[in-house]
């Protein structure tokens, strides 16, 4: 696949989301601070970062669950950043979300069949019988017997509920699925079931995924490309394999070296980088490069000038982008798999 040629399905340009802080003299927090990226048709774009980095808010921006403070989001060629709720309706059919907590994202008083049917009813897709048949198909597709439609969410385990959430998201046959921490509440064996299901569905329906998660291992596993966020900004965006083999941003490097590793795993030799201190609060964002107080390579310029996301490496288009004044030198062009 020539990546540069593949169609862009979702484009975020300079997205900013600002929240007003309660009390405290109307201070504001920029949860998302100028994020631009493109999602290509059929790919999985991973968005990874620690708590408070703005990855979930960014997910809510591109699905328009919140209003943008600035910037634009273009979906299938339409600028959706200023559409009203009513105008968003037809768009929502094409772009669905899967949420983190399968316990709070399903209405406990609704039967599973009704939960999955709800989007179909809201969008008036077919009559009762057609809907019932489709619900049966959807449940079957995510691994349930259609006879389960009469049960309530509490009768299911966490992993099963997440599959119900996925069936609901698929009901309207969307082209993009934005999944916010879809497996982080699940045990590892159940997590694997859900990840495999998502992969199967992607190839079956040609879905495009935006996969938001804090778990780098999971993000690497599912993603074609990965955007790393820190304090509301993208600090690095690259092909998943390349990113994990050789990070260019010092934060990415620290993040990667912090993943607990299984003994015997064949991994690129990685220097242990233990960051000191905590992620600063977005309300108290450092000047210049937001990462500079914790960065081992920070110099004077990092304190004063915010680095822009720019291309590095051998490929100009579709290549790696990094926002750093002193990026880690990349190794010789990697031999890419055909």
């Amino acid at each position: 696949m020539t990546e540069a040629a593949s169609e862009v399905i979702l484009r975020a340009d300079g997205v900013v989301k600002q929240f007003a802080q309660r009390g405290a003299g109307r201070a504001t927090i920029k949860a998302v601070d100028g994020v631009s990226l493109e999602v290509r048709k059929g790919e999985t774009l991973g968005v990874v970062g620690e708590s408070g980095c703005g990855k979930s808010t960014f997910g809510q921006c591109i699905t328009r669950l919140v209003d943008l403070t600035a910037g634009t989001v273009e979906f299938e060629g339409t600028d959706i950043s200023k559409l009203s709720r009513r105008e968003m309706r037809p768009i929502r059919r094409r772009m669905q979300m899967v949420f983190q907590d399968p316990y709070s994202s399903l209405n406990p008083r609704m039967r599973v069949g009704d939960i999955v049917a709800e989007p179909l009813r809201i969008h008036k897709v077919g009559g009762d019988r057609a809907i019932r048949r489709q619900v049966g198909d959807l449940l079957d597709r995510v691994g349930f017997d259609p006879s389960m439609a009469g049960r309530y969410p509490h009768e299911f385990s966490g992993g099963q509920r997440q599959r119900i959430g996925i069936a609901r998201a698929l009901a309207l046959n969307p082209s993009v699925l934005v999944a916010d921490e879809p497996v982080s509440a699940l045990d590892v064996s159940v997590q694997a079931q859900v990840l495999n299901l998502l992969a199967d569905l992607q190839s079956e329906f040609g879905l495009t995924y935006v996969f938001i998660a804090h778990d780098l291992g999971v993000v690497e596993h599912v993603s074609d490309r990965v955007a790393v966020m820190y304090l509301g900004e993208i600090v690095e965006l690259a092909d998943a394999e390349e990113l994990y083999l050789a990070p260019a941003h010092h934060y990415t490097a620290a993040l990667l070296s912090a993943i607990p590793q299984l003994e015997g795993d064949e991994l690129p030799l990685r220097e242990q980088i233990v960051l000191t201190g905590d992620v600063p609060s977005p309300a108290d964002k450092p000047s210049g490069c937001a990462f500079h107080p914790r960065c081992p390579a920070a110099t004077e310029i990092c304190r004063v000038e915010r680095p822009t996301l720019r291309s590095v490496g051998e490929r100009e288009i579709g290549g790696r982008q990094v926002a750093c004044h002193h990026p880690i030198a990349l190794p010789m062009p990697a031999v890419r798999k055909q």
Partner: protein
Amino acid sequence: MPEPQIEETSAALLEVDDLRVSFRTRQGAVGAVNGLSFSVGKGEVLGVVGESGSGKSMAMYSMMGLLADPNVTVTGSARFRGQELIGMPPKRLNRLRGNDIAMIFQDPMTALTPVYTVGWQIVEQIRTHTDLSREDAWARAVELLDEVGIPDPQRRARSYPHEFSGGMRQRVMIAMSLACNPALLIADEPTTALDVTTQRQILELIRKLQARYGSSVILITHDMGVISEIADRVIVMYAGRAIEEGDRSEVVRRPRHPYTWGLLGAIPRPERRKLPLATIPGLPPKPTVTTVGCAFAPRCPFVMDKCRTILPPLEASGADIDHLDACLLPGGAEREAIRKEVL
């Protein structure tokens, strides 16, 4: 030879034998821990791994007398330095807790009192168990905060828990647990609520302090990666029982139980990017349903008829006599061959 054996038992700090915890519910007795036996040596880090509901936390809580509920029955034995913990009068257990055995929990916010400063809480801990004066205890509290890497400990001792981040709160918890230099630290998912870079800091800290004080640590976690980084020995739990036990490298590199194979296979690995993950079909057994035979049998890809009737004992099945597993599959090289098919 009887002699080295005696030495071995005396080296164990904690010895647990056939521990059982059951809850009385409307659906009848529910077994959370169903005959767990293990020991922790002096200065050893024991990792206990298992998924939700495997009984790993319940086992520890029951030993520590934290399940004081008329509907909970705890039987079996847990000897700490030779003293029986199960059924120990609460007063004596209280003295042991905090003094000799300390515990840290997953959520440091709920484990700290929001209405007192962290310094006050550490001082209380110190004064309960020692006869230090208030002033000396305060100085010690500041020292402890410094030791666990809290910047500006003088000032931070006067802060309240909500003024700390999650990682910093966990450091406070660790400082508190170290207040009396315990011989055994039980850490229940201490890094699960934390970000990965903070998790790294806390694991480093536990390792550093463990080396410094020579304490033994029981680390309860669901994360094989965390186990692989810090544990000397590993117990894998399933349905309230240990199903595999051995040296960390043995269990991670040459696991012998099909459940452990599944657990390890389900972890995304860089070299298997985009390939399907190994999964364990089905769900963990409901504790309300008592199983005869191996509890993993309904989910096991290698299940045999006898698995449904015989409860497999935890014993060595290979060359390493300290590597135990509870499985009826053929042992030795034959088991290795089966594993290589799936993992």
